[in-house]
């Protein structure tokens, strides 16, 4: 009866075990002690945990910027990121050799704006227009996103590793065959990278490093070396110079530490200390922005510069030797050398008033040790030599300071000529181009393009396409400066750091990383970062004596962006007068001369694909999107040329076809052209932009100045359209002559008149209004612009473009007169076409109290805020353009198209460029009016902060983008009701005036009248 049923053999045989298994088949709970990690092997739980983690990591952590996933809030807030709040990182700009300190503003992890780093003693919080706009290069949709190999003469897109392994092979091949590895680079200011290169050289001894700077003034270095052998070159400290004589120098815009120069130059242009104004004489052939700021500007053909300086020295040492303070001057030796040059004769021969040259002499003599002679980067060796000599004679060496200098000395052009020969003869096994474009930069007779084709491996590391990459076998894309680490040493004791502020957008590495990996054999993304830290720990930290742990030191330097190790003072100079014997100064006939200048905004051509910079109007002529041959009105007439006529220029058998543009004040028989334009291989933006004057240069020019004499000009029967943002008319046209003065748009006086009370601002006393006056209480915004300080550099325009998402319209639309920039710098010429005087005036929305734009808008899309802003409501605007018609300053800008879409086939709608926009500023649609808002987004932010902190909003809480950018601090912004504020002071200054005051529309931008430091006797 008691039958036992069993279900399996086991149960039958081992009943106890089966019973236990039955009971534990579904355990009622998991004990706390249960730990899957302690289980042997891969448990089910562990497997599931790992696979869940894998999925989680795969779906979230591996996401990058290119993914278009759903927008989800942060589950875990990343450290230091608060949505809606900007983060700032200090870094260093690598746009030019000045390496200004920068602060990069990022929002939600993407950089949107760059400004100067106020802690940097060089640029003190200011950067140039190019630096402002360089952020577009980061997001440039035409950057290299992949690596390329050239096979069968076509570029093939490949992965990074493929090109990198080729690079390793090429390096080993070249070094094992004993062939040279040539590394060509832009100047190297990074001590750590210099060390890496050094290690590279040690590992591969056949390596040679060639560094250069585009249009570098080698002639200047040579002249310095002659006069002061074995002494590092110095530059002028303009804050110490009371009298400045510039020979074709553009020291306020393109040459030397120009941001610093601007600050120091305008420091002596303070109207409240008008007695201390510096006096600035400019002798130049081109019309430079620097010349436009001169008190006296004398146009002179470049071939006469040497004669001029020789005559000037002769005048000083023969007529006024008794007045010389510097007793070590060998007067008799100089007398003998320069006796053939007479200043009066020179003046007569060149049609210059002798008295104006005499006043230079007397000013220089009266200000010995406090004056400066500056020679421009383009002029020949002799001019530099005489300029340095003149400073020596006058004792002006006191005004010198150390010039920035790369860590590795730059090579001379002869080295590149030799390199080219070596490549052609097969001695070079590998060329690595590091972020430079030698094929474009050097003249055709050096023949680098052809030489590259003789080398089996040419690797080019570049951000975007260029002429050198076109002649390379391999292209490695490199990270933008904002994606890279870096350190820089400027030669006078200051170090600065660059840090990445965004993950590389594409599969790129920084060039330092790649070279480093060739040294240590490891290609790791972060290798250079670690190397840099180690370098600083071993090399710089010990010298700093900072007394804190290295980590603390490192992060504090990273935070500040700069670290001043020591103040290096210039070595005492010992002048080698013996070198006088070597120099031959021969008077030259004035012949047709062409001078090649550095461009204002596009650097060495690397920014030639940056639409913001191409559309920035030329500071003098307001031409955008092109360069041209500048010619004077008189000479153009003699050759029957009009602006836009094509000419063929011949120099030594080399030819260039380019259009001319009539610019008043260009010297006789002179053509001036800016280089960096005319790039052949750029992206879609830089295509067909400008003309390349390097075609006219030969290798001799690179060592002896960029002046070509005896050029031939022939008019061609073709026209070219140059897009200028203003209308040009002859200065002889009496109908429109000096309207800016008769209409009191520009009010100017001289220092002398101002000091003795003769100069009075034209004011309109009788003002009637039928409109009841509106009372404003609380903060009311106003601006003041000091025209004594504004030098017209255009940094404000560039900063405004970036801050306010101002669209680029393209050349065709500029020609139609539809440029969109919210702030512009007006250039007014007065005087004669041969020797004009320039007045500059930034013009932006004047935020008039009784704004004429407001009452005519049918839909109240433009109206007034309680704090005095003239506002624009984009949503409400239907685009009647009535407001713009009625605006006497014409500072309103209309979106005739959706310019983001219209420009270059929707360039600004490409994915990467969408990241560029400032999220605080509405992107305007087609058909609406826009204009300067006084950076209302910054005002709002400041107000929010004040509210959050429970205090009153102060005028000084807000800085507009243009004000922040202005290297001369010419723009002052704030609360006009705050009697303590600077803007209140300038608004009530006796030199302050409103443009078109007689209209009684109560503008809120005060202009401080410019004073020119003229001598009394010239007032006739």
């Amino acid at each position, binding site marked *: 009866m008691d039958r036992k049923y069993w279900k399996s053999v086991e149960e039958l045989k081992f009943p106890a075990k089966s019973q236990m298994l039955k009971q534990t088949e579904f355990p009622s709970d998991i004990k706390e002690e249960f730990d899957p990690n302690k289980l042997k092997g891969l448990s089910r739980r562990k497997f599931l945990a790992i696979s869940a983690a894998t999925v989680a990591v795969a779906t979230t952590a591996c996401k990058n910027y290119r993914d278009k996933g759903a927008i989800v809030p942060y589950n875990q807030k990343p450290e230091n990121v608060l949505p809606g709040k900007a983060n700032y990182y200090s870094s260093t700009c690598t746009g030019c050799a000045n390496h200004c300190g920068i602060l990069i503003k990022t929002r939600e992890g993407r950089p949107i704006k760059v400004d100067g780093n106020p802690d940097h003693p060089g640029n003190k919080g200011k950067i140039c227009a190019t630096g402002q706009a360089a952020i577009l290069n980061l997001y440039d949709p035409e950057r290299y996103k992949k690596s390329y190999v050239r096979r069968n003469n076509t570029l093939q897109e490949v992965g990074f590793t493929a090109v990198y392994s080729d690079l390793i092979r090429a390096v080993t091949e070249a070094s094992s065959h004993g062939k040279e590895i040539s590394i060509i680079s832009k100047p190297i200011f990074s001590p750590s990278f210099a060390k890496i290169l050094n290690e590279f050289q040690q590992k591969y001894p056949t390596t040679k490093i060639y560094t250069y700077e585009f249009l570098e003034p080698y002639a200047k270095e040579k002249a310095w070396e002659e006069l002061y052998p074995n002494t590092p070159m110095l530059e002028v400290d303009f804050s110490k110079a009371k009298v400045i004589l510039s020979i074709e120098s553009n020291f306020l815009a393109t040459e030397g530490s120009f941001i610093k120069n601007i600050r120091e130059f305008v420091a002596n242009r303070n109207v409240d200390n008008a007695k201390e104004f510096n006096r600035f004489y400019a002798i130049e052939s081109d019309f430079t922005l620097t010349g436009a700021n001169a008190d006296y500007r004398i146009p002179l053909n470049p071939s006469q510069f040497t004669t001029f300086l020789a005559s000037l020295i002769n005048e000083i040492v023969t007529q006024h030797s008794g007045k010389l303070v510097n007793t070590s001057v060998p007067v008799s030796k100089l007398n003998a050398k320069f006796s053939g040059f007479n200043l009066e004769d020179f003046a007569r021969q060149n049609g210059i008033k002798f008295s104006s040259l005499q006043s230079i002499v007397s000013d220089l003599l009266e200000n010995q040790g406090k004056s400066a002679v500056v020679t421009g980067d383009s002029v020949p060796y002799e001019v530099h030599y005489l300029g340095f000599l003149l400073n020596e004679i006058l004792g002006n060496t006191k005004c010198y300071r150390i010039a920035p200098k790369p860590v590795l000395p730059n090579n001379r052009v002869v080295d590149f000529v030799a390199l080219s020969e070596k490549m052609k003869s097969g001695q070079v096994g590998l060329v690595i181009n590091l972020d430079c474009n030698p094929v474009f930069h050097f003249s055709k007779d050096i023949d680098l393009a052809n030489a590259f084709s003789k080398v089996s491996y040419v690797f080019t590391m570049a951000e975007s396409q260029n002429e050198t990459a076109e002649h390379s076998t391999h292209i490695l894309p490199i990270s933008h400066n904002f994606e890279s680490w870096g350190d820089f040493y400027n030669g006078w004791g200051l170090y600065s750091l660059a840090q990445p502020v965004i993950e590389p957008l594409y599969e790129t590495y920084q060039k330092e990383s790649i070279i480093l990996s060739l040294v240590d054999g490891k290609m790791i993304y972060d290798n250079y970062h670690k190397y840099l830290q180690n370098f600083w720990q071993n090399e710089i930290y010990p010298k700093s004596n900072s007394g804190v742990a290295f980590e603390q030191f490192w992060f504090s330097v990273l935070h500040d962006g700069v670290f001043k190790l020591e103040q290096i003072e210039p070595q005492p100079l010992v002048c080698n007068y013996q070198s006088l014997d070597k120099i031959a100064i021969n008077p030259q006939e004035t012949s047709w001369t062409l001078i090649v200048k550095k461009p204002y905004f596009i650097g060495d051509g690397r920014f030639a694909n940056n639409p913001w910079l191409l559309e920035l109007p030329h500071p003098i002529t307001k031409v955008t999107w092109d360069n041209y041959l500048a010619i004077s009105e008189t000479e153009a007439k003699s050759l029957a040329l009009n602006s836009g006529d094509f000419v063929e220029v011949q120099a030594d058998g080399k030819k260039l076809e380019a259009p001319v543009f009539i610019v008043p004040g260009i010297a006789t028989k002179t053509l001036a052209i800016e280089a960096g334009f005319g790039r052949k291989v750029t992206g879609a933006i830089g295509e067909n932009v400008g003309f390349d004057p390097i075609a006219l240069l030969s290798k001799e020019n690179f060592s002896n100045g960029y002046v070509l004499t005896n050029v031939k000009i022939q008019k061609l029967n073709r026209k070219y359209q140059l897009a200028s943002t203003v209308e040009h008319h002859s200065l002889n046209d009496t109908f429109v002559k000096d309207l800016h003065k008769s209409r009191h748009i520009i009010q100017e006086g001289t220092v002398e008149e101002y000091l003795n009370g003769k100069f009075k601002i034209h004011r309109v006393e009788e003002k009637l209004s039928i409109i009841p006056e509106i009372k404003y209480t609380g903060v009311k915004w106003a601006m003041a612009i000091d025209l004594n300080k504004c030098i017209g550099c255009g940094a404000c325009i560039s900063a405004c473009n970036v801050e306010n998402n101002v669209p680029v319209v393209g050349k065709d639309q500029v020609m139609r007169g539809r440029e969109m920039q919210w702030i512009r710098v007006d250039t007014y010429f007065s005087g004669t076409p041969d020797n004009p005087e320039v007045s500059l005036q930034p013009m932006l929305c004047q935020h008039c109290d009784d704004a004429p734009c407001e009452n005519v808008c049918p839909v109240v899309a433009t109206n007034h805020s309680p704090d005095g802003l003239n506002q624009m409501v984009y949503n409400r605007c239907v685009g009647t353009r009535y407001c713009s*018609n*009625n605006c006497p300053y014409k500072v309103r*800008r209309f979106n005739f198209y959706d310019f983001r879409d*219209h420009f270059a086939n929707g360039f600004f709608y490409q994915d990467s460029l969408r990241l560029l926009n400032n999220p605080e500023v509405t992107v305007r649609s*087609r058909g609406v009016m826009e204009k300067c808002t006084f950076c209302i987004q910054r005002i709002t932010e400041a107000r929010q902060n004040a509210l959050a902190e429970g205090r009153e909003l102060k005028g000084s809480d807000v800085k507009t983008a243009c004000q922040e950018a202005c290297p001369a601090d010419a723009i002052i912004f704030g609360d006009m009701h705050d009697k303590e504020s600077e803007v209140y002071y300038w608004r009530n200054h006796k030199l302050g005036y409103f443009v078109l005051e007689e209209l009684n529309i109560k503008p809120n931008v005060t202009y401080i009248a410019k004073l020119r430091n003229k001598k009394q006797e010239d007032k006739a």
Partner: protein
Amino acid sequence: MSNIDYTIEPEVVEGKPSHSAVNDAIAKPLETKPTWKYYIALGISSTLLLIGAVCLGYSFYYGIGLWGNNQPVGWAVPIVNFVFWVGIGHAGTLISAILFLFRQRWRTGIARFAEAMTIFAVITAGLFPLIHTGRPWLAGYLFPLPNQHHLWVNFTSPLIWDVFAVSTYLTVSFVFWYIGLIPDLAMLRDRTTSKIKKVIYSIFSLGWRHSNRHWNHYEMIYLILAGFATPLVLSVHTIVSFDFAVSILPGWHTTIFPPYFVAGAVFSGFAMVQNVLIIVRKIFNLEHIITLDTLEKMNKVMLATGMMVGYAYGVEFFIAWYSGNPLESFVFLNRAFGNYAWAYWIMVSCNVIFTQLFWFKKIRRSIVPMFIIGVLVNVGMWFERFVIVVTTLSKDFLPSNWDYYKPTLVDIGILLGSFGLFFTLVILFIRSLPVVSISEVKAVIKGSQPGHH
């Protein structure tokens, strides 16, 4: 010449036709099939209309950047067209209302046509303020309509005044025109044999039975509407001129603008009516109703208004000099001798010089010369608006603002399209409604008036 008795008004209708002959002559185009010439004319005008429509479509799609407008010339050809067509629309109401009040019996032959042209011209003009905006799909913002934004229009803006002035003018002109049509529509209703037409005419004639009571009401309302329309003739162009006069630009900001604009509008309106009627009377054999006398009278009006316009040109220069305002004198010198001097001299020669030929009776009464002068007047008046709008904007206060304006092909296409729209409407009108007021003409035929027997 000397035997004319000026105490007796000459007959306005020649040949004393019978009432039924008047009916027949005027109703004929409505009751016969059009000839091929009609279709050619319609084809040309509708092609122009299509060109305009395509150009507008392009502008809507790509943006008004397709036009030549720039900074500083925010307004250009579209606004020129607007002012031009509003001007054309002035003759109609002037003829039908003001001349009616002044009991000018010669107006009867041309009043209907002139009024129709007024309506078509104002329709054409009214398009421009809407399409010239950057975002025409939001043109509704220009009307004071309750909206979800709780936003109102800006009553200090002359553009809003324009909206009211033009829409009022269009409404009143249309009502006035329609009231005048009622007796004629009733007559057509009674004549027609087509059933469809009968239904249509019956509806639109509002049950008119030619009864004494009807005529009594009709005369009353017509008089009231004439009185109502009269100030509008003056107000519309006055307000259009305010678009410019209320601004602060030298060259726009002048008090002479309202009378100057009204005179110019009447001037160009008469030229357009004269032009079109010359063709209509020829084609439809209405020479005895729209007589040479009538045309001569119109030419005299043109001579008078042309001289008013010329006077305004002179006064502007005088005041520019007399005021001593350098900005003002610069603007006027710039108009005459600057970049746009060609436009200025086209304007002066067409409007002031050529119209002087109307001093000669022979020219006033010859069809071809008067037609040519009429065309030139309209060319001149278009350029007058061009000169006012464009030259002023192109060179204003700051020399750095200045820029030259050039119209594009799209601008010209839209101008052609406006002519296409106007003439298409005119051509459709002459075949669908009586071009001359039948009832009024009957009343002015010799013998129709109450007399001794």
